């Protein structure tokens, strides 16, 4: 059959257009692209640096073991510099430029707040450990999952410890003036009141204030039996602890995990000021009554030691949550493939994923995966290789 020049041109044009529009086939050995938004520099970077150690180790382990179904994981990392604007730019680049399969992070709530809706619109599955409550909502953001606790869970654990274990009924709640600090105070004070405690002092203070003696004296005058500070600023927290020590005021301090960080410890006037300080932490990464870590965690720590990953200047739970995250992604892709809806479908049915950090479960209606029972309080002064002893009152369970 003969073909006119016009028909030939039409056919060639149609073939070209079809070629351009056709979705490129994903080769079986193409890498799995994981977009990663850690804060490795900037004022909130201590968490990011710890988490990054776990993420990098997990990716190396998975790739060394042959990858996921023969496909290597390629981690495309963009440092958010603790800046929400840079986190948004990074997320846009990862989804539009690199067309990643999944995004991990951001790992600070302030950066996650603008990024979560952006990724929801980009139709990319997201896994993050941020605590602010609204950052995982199965209806609003059906592709977003949280493998960490919510603020409600964290505050609930601290409040239960103060009111039910320590039996303190008059509580002082203080925070810095950041969004996290003020949101925490606003959320936890009503919870305390519901539990029957009396909040005798409540305040948001500029974290740069060099002298917190007025605040501590005001708490003392109000008859507080426990201090609950909510801030990630080690300088602010250390000033509270130091002032309590200088006043020889023997009330417990219970609150944010940073109370137990190495940065806070380094700023204490005296080591003994760290006594009776109980930060939040997570049972799977704590020393039990026998002084040992759970078996799963012990094996993980041995692998960290073999890989010469430093644990002395960070917290074990940061490394652990970082380590679990690529494994959660790898398990989903290995079982159902890398299509966004398949990953989401798999996670929606996830039950008790045995992470080092915790047992993660999701349902189609609940994308907050961390179990309440694994959130505990610990003794700050027991810090050893990033892990703590459980606070008094938890028993050997």
């Amino acid at each position, binding site marked *: 059959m003969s073909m006119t020049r016009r028909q030939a041109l039409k056919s060639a044009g149609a073939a070209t257009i079809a070629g351009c529009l056709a979705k490129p086939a994903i080769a079986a050995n193409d890498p799995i692209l994981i977009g990663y938004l850690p804060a490795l520099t900037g004022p909130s970077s*201590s968490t990011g640096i710890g988490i990054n150690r776990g993420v990098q180790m997990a990716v190396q382990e998975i790739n060394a073991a042959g990858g996921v179904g023969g496909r290597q994981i390629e981690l495309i990392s963009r440092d958010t510099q603790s800046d929400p604007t840079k986190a948004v730019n990074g997320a846009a680049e990862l989804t539009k430029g690199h067309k990643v399969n999944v995004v991990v992070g951001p790992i600070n709530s302030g950066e996650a707040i603008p990024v979560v809706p952006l990724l929801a619109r980009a139709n990319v599955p997201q896994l993050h450990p941020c605590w602010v409550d609204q950052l995982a909502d199965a209806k609003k953001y059906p592709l977003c999952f949280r493998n960490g606790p919510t603020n409600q869970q964290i505050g609930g654990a601290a409040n239960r410890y103060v009111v039910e274990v320590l039996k303190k009924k008059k509580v002082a709640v203080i925070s810095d*003036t950041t969004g996290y600090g003020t949101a925490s105070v606003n959320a936890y004070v009503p919870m305390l009141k519901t539990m029957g405690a009396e909040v005798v002092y409540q305040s948001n*203070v500029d974290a740069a204030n060099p002298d917190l*003696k*007025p605040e501590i004296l005001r708490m003392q005058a109000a008859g507080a039996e426990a201090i609950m500070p909510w801030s990630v*600023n080690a300088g602010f927290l250390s000033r509270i602890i130091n002032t309590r020590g200088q006043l020889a005021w023997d009330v417990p301090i219970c609150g944010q995990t940073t109370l137990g960080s190495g940065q806070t410890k380094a700023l204490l006037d005296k080591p003994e000021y760290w006594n009776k300080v109980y930060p939040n932490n997570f049972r799977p990464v704590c020393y039990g009554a026998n002084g040992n870590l759970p078996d799963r965690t012990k094996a993980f720590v041995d692998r960290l030691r073999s890989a010469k990953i430093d644990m002395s200047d960070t917290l074990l739970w940061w490394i652990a949550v970082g380590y679990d995250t690529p494994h959660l992604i790898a398990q989903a892709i290995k079982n159902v493939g890398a299509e966004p809806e398949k990953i989401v479908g798999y996670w929606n049915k996830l039950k008790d994923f045995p992470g080092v950090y915790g047992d993660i479960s999701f349902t189609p209606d609940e994308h907050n995966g961390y179990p309440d029972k694994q959130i505990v309080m610990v003794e700050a002064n027991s810090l050893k290789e990033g892990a703590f002893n459980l606070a008094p009152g938890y028993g050997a369970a």
Partner: protein
Amino acid sequence: MVESIVLSGVAIGCIYALIGIAYNVMFSASRVFSFTAGTLGMLGGILGSLFILRMGMPIWFGFILALAGGALLGVVTEIVAVRPVLKSLDQHLYVLSTLALALIVQQYTAIEWSTEPQPFPRIFDVARGGFDQQLWLPMVACAITIVGLEVLYRHTLLGHAFLAIAEDNYAARALGLPERNLRMASYALAGAIGALAGFAGGQMLLAFFANAPLLTFYGFVPVALGGMGNNRGAVVAGLILGLFQQAANFLVGGIFASVAVFTVFIIVLLARPDGLAGASVGRRV
């Protein structure tokens, strides 16, 4: 409570006053408000911690090096951020250039040092008490600086030369004074004073990069209240600011203390635009 307000207030007020003096020394030499003053204070604390705690140097040597570091930044400020804009003072480009330099130094410090506050060493190995060294060190540093500047300006030839260029730099140059060198020396002196503020207040403020904007802001208040270029006014206003801030901390607490401080600051400037100690200057029309 009153004792606490007074001791803490005077201590923090002395730090603000020293930063205010650093502003003034730079202003006198160049008619420029260099917003690197707070950065100098931040650097004094961080260099002190770096040399003494991290590098293990003797305290006296770390102290001298910290002041030298401040002086060096002062000179760099003059060369990089002030000298290029001196010819167009009326356009106030120095606001941009000095703020930019301050920001560069602050960010570089955050990257190289730490974004978390770091400990500052105890200067004297004595037990902590009510009137601790973290309170009296800034007071001593402030007193020494005031006396030292009085001696320098009133009883030395160099001091007279500084005053001459502060009074009328054209006339001073016509008399053969090396204006540029004197200006650089003034900036070095201001750098050392700023670093001294950070070093003396290091135990209170910690070695923290974010102290720079705090000191830039609160250090400017004594200058505005005390009168531009007026060191005595800066000291008095710095002490008043520190005391008022501490009193507000005790009485109203929380974030309302800062609100109270700046409310009073604005009211004072509305009532006396030239500052508490400043005099109105006539303008030929």
